């Protein structure tokens, strides 16, 4: 097993009349365990072009359903108006504008149905570009997160 931690710090001194400052750290464990750390990860950087299509950023393998996975995605573009949408198959989660990032748990269970390879995490650029997107996915030991070659 491995020990991987994810920490968030949120802060603002002027959105409220009192300061917001919170920090939270979690250790990424397999499900149904108390202390078994995730052991697989994939990470990368891709350029996303405006093409009118979405692209699979992280594949959902049949074995991935209900496995514990955590996903980090960041839009490294620097033009404020530029954004990409992040979706799970056809359900848009939200827009990552230049400089934004997100960190979510992902169990590849919806919306394409059980064990569906449709449940990929997808990215689509709508403005400007190419926009550089960085990502990392941490996965548990019980299943591979590789896609079968099919040939």
């Amino acid at each position, binding site marked *: 097993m491995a*020990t991987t931690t994810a920490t968030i710090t949120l802060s603002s001194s002027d*959105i409220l009349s009192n300061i917001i400052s919170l920090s939270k750290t979690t250790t990424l464990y397999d499900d149904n365990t108390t202390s078994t750390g995730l052991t697989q990860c994939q990470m990368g950087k891709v350029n996303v072009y405006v093409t009118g299509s979405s692209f699979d950023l992280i594949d959902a393998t049949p074995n991935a359903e209900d496995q514990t996975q955590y996903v980090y995605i960041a839009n490294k573009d620097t033009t404020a108006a530029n954004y990409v949408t992040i979706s799970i198959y056809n359900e848009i989660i939200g827009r990552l*504008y230049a400089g934004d*990032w997100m960190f979510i748990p992902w169990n590849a269970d919806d919306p394409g149905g059980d064990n569906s390879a449709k449940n990929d995490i997808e990215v689509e650029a709508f403005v400007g570009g190419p926009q550089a997107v960085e990502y*990392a996915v941490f996965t548990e030991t019980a299943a591979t997160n590789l896609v079968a070659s099919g040939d």
Partner: protein
Amino acid sequence: MATTTATITLASGDMMDNSISISNTATLTNQGNDTGMTKTTGLTRIITAATDNVVLINTGDTSGNYGAAALGADNTINKGKIFIQNLNDRGDGSKYVTVLMQAVEIGRLYGGDWCFFPFDGASGGDDVELTPSSTTETALEYVAFYE
């Protein structure tokens, strides 16, 4: 405008042969410009024993605490970013809260886990929802920043 930042650090000394250290800071701005978000739900704590969907952010709501009828249209939550954490102990690792976007599962927050992501309900209906896996009381905290 306000200046609100969100920083993530992902670290592992033994996942791979070399250490992983990812750090990134985002300044939370309105969509498409550099203007800082000026509205927030504030840090909110809820306790639920429900096993049905619980609507955490009712995007486009016109009747709730943040809705147009209550506070005016300018306070309706449509576009924002949300932080959610499951405050329960991890226990045996079998209990979790499923985070959903309008009934579509995103993933599971086990005890101690957190997530942070953008949401956009402007087109209608994309609420941020939760479904605890058991009737065990679950304590959660969340804060949304929105435009």
